[in-house]
Each structure stands twice: as C-alpha cells, then as structure tokens.
C-alpha cells in the first residue's frame, strides 16, 4: 500500500519516495492521492502539500509555488518552481 511521490524543482529532485497519502492544493480544489489513483493532471495553487508517510502519522509539509501535479500509473509527480 504505497504511492510513489516525487517532488521536483528546476534545481533538484526534492523528494522521491514511497508514501501513504499526499494532499495537494489543486487550482480546482484540494485533493488527496492514494495508491491506484486514476491518471489525472492539474495545476497546483501556491500553498502547502501534505505528505503522510504512514496512515495516521503526522504529515510532512512542503510549501510550493508555481506547481503542477501529474498522477500516472507510476505515482504522483509534483513539479514546482519553488519549494520552501
């Protein structure tokens, strides 16, 4: 039960690991991604991405600006211009 989550900025690969769930602030509303999500592409609002490594654990937070998310069979990839 894991989802490959990659957070990429122009300068480097910030994160690439298997996590449980990721909640992304999409432009059309916040959405959560678990393993086996349908392929889906959206732009991301400037805001906070929350990453749960384990169910019920405390989420890790990444502030992103200029983001874009892509869910494919591989997993979730977020491209962000700035990660703070």
């Amino acid at each position, binding site marked *: 039960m894991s989802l490959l989550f990659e957070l990429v900025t*122009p*300068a480097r690969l910030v994160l690439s690991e298997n996590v449980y769930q990721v909640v992304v602030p*999409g432009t059309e509303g916040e959405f959560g991604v678990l393993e086996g999500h349908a392929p889906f592409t959206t*732009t991301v609002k400037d805001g906070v991405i929350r990453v749960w490594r384990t169910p019920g654990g405390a989420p890790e937070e990444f502030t992103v600006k200029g983001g874009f998310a892509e869910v*494919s069979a591989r997993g979730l990839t977020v*491209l962000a211009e700035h990660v703070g």
Partner: protein
Amino acid sequence: MASLKELKGRINSVKSTQKITKAKQMVAAAKLRKAQAAAEAARPYALRLASVVGSLASRVTLSEASPRLLAGTGRDQVHLLVVANSDRGLCGAFNANIVKAAKLKARDLAAEGKTVLFYLVGRKGRAPLRRDFPKAILDTFDTTGVREPGYAEAEAIAAEVLALYDAGKFDVAHLFYGKFKSALVQEPTEQQIVPVPTPTVAVTDGAVVEYEPDEETILAELLPRYLRNQIFGALLENVASEQGASMTAMDNATRNAGELIKKLTIQYNRSRQAAITTELIEIIAGAEAL
C-alpha cells in the same frame, strides 16, 4: 642580445603568469564539477516538464484562442536574439564563439529582410555585439551581481522576454548559448524559444488522463514555465561550458608558459656561459701579456 638581468626579469614574469594560469585552471576544474552536478540535478524537472508540455501540445489544436506563446503572433518579421554569455574572460574563445554564432544568424535574418533585435545576458557579449549592431541592442541583463546564474535569474530573464513579447516588440525569439559537450568541446547553440517549439514526445500509454481545469488552461499555465526552464537550462549549460573552456584555455596557457620559460632559461644559461668565457679569455690574455 638581452642582458642577463633582463632575461632573469622576463623568466620571473613568465613564471608568475604561469602561476596565475595554473591557479585559474584548478579553480575552473573545481567549478566545472559543481556546474556539471547542477546540470545533472536540473534534468528530472526539465524532462518531466518537456514530456507534459509535449503531450499537452499534441492534444491541443492550434486556433485563434490558443496561447500566443504556442501559436505565435502570426508574423515573422521581428526576431529577438537572446545571447547568453559569461561575465568573466580567461575562457578562450568561448564567448567569441557564441557571439559569432549570433552575428551569423543576425546577418542571415537581416539578409532576408527581417528586423533583428538583441537581448544580452552576461557582460562579455555586450562590447562585440554593440560594435556591430549599435542600434539593435534592445536590453541587457546583468548577471555580475551573482556568483552563478540560477533559477532566479532565469525567471527574471524570462519575465523580461515575455513582457517584450506581450508588448509586441518581437515575433520570434532565439536563444544563443554554449552547449556543454565535454571539457574540451563547447558548442555554440541556437534554439528557438518563442513561439515555444513543442517538444516531441512518444505517447507513453493509452491511458485516459483527466485534465483539471482543461488542457488549454494548463498549457497556458505551463508554457511560461517551460520557457523559464529552457532559459534556466541554457544558463546552466553556459556555466559548465564556460568553466570547461576556461580549464582548457588555462591548461594551454600554462603549457605555453612552461615552454617559454624553458626557452628563456636556455638563452639565459648561454649568455651566462658566454660572459664567463669572455672573462676567462680576458684574464688569460692579461696574464700572457705580463
């Protein structure tokens, strides 16, 4: 023939030059490694962005409503040449080659009756281009304030280029920079950046992908980012190329200085020997006269 003292002075001066070129060579080697690592780290983002933009662009049919960055202005009259150079010299023909490529393109375009404008990044390209095209320099971007140009600079450059595009100052933009092939080879490269040439990607899988809000909106959002990233990539390549060129040029300079020192030392020794011989002859002649 030069006196012994003069020769000694020259040898010393060449030696200190050699020290400088050697130091610069080592600095360039260290910086090259860093620049290569930075270019490596930038690859995942560039690849993914290119594949997304490519697959989106292949879905969208060009129409009146298409983003102007993709469709263009419908004209092909004014060309903007964005020329990225380094700020520092001591890197052989690196900057000269980029400038040469830009000039060639500018002449070709001018021969076709197009208007050519320049947007210059970095300090080293300004003088030669200003000399040849004094009226065509639209603007310059200064990178002397930062150690290595990074994403912030790419964003600033892209913002200015986009502002010029939106203001209708040009129809097509080309980017010139030195592509890093190896420490020995840097290739001056020309690349069209506006309108955005769509990257060609193989369609990955037949899966139905949902788009939110929709393809056009996402594409319009991504195109400026794609442009920024293209410029960022060029800046990174340029940094690596500059260091590579610098390393090669300084290696040659060090070797030449070594050869020169060898030659001068031989000359110095010969003169010294000649002086001693003359002195001996004088002494012997003096003793014989007694």
